[in-house]
């Protein structure tokens, strides 16, 4: 996985230029460290310039470019794209996994949403609140109760958008 701090629109281009990483020998995705996963942090200065349409545009281009990458590599297996907002790290994250109708690797409860909008809404709302000082993080210098933590993780509901990339006959 790759963490990038987005400080300008050019940083989006860096992500778009990357191709999907596929193990050409076995014609499958490498099974280590989520090589096609990206973690997007934003500088506060750039975040204030960014809007939802620009983000939507980026993700549309991302799916288009990765689909093109599959065509170039003649990769016939379906690939599942999924994206979410990591509220703790204040990052937009996405990944591509081989297959469709796959179980996504989250420890919490996930809610599949039919567009990126709820994810963007949560992202902009949360980060704006943090920057405005209206959202506070509770910090204490002691470890919590593990059982309570596990309960909270299981019951945490995360919005996740998914889309399957699949080559069709016209892509050959």
């Amino acid at each position, binding site marked *: 996985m790759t963490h990038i701090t987005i400080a300008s629109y050019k940083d989006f281009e860096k992500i778009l230029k990357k191709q999907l990483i596929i193990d050409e020998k076995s014609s499958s995705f490498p099974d280590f460290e989520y090589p096609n996963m990206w973690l997007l942090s*934003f500088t506060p200065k750039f975040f204030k310039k960014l809007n939802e349409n620009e983000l939507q545009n980026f993700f549309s281009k991302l799916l288009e470019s990765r689909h093109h990458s599959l065509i170039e590599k003649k990769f016939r297996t379906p690939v599942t794209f999924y994206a979410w907002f990591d509220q*703790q790290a204040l990052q937009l994250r996405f990944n591509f996994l081989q297959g469709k109708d796959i179980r996504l690797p*989250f420890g919490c409860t996930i809610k599949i949403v039919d567009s990126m909008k709820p994810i963007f809404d949560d992202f902009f709302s949360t980060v704006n609140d943090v920057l405005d000082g209206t959202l*506070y*993080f509770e910090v*204490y210098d002691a470890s919590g109760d593990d059982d309570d933590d596990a309960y909270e*993780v299981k019951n945490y509901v995360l919005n996740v958008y998914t889309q399957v990339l699949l080559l069709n006959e016209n892509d050959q």
Partner: protein
Amino acid sequence: MYRDPQTKLWWSRDTGGHGGSSYKVFREGARGFDWVFDADTVGNKIIGKHKGPIGAFIPYKEVIFLP
């Protein structure tokens, strides 16, 4: 969050738990907390690459420190 007195990093339970991540680890920076890495159940760093500047996104003035 729990502060490791040796490394001075702050550890928090990962609520999303993607890919076996159990903790999120933050560093105290000049202006606030920087996310540093995700860690697995035994605290090992889940390896990743980094591109671009490090961004601080949780300014101290927006954190309530509890006793």
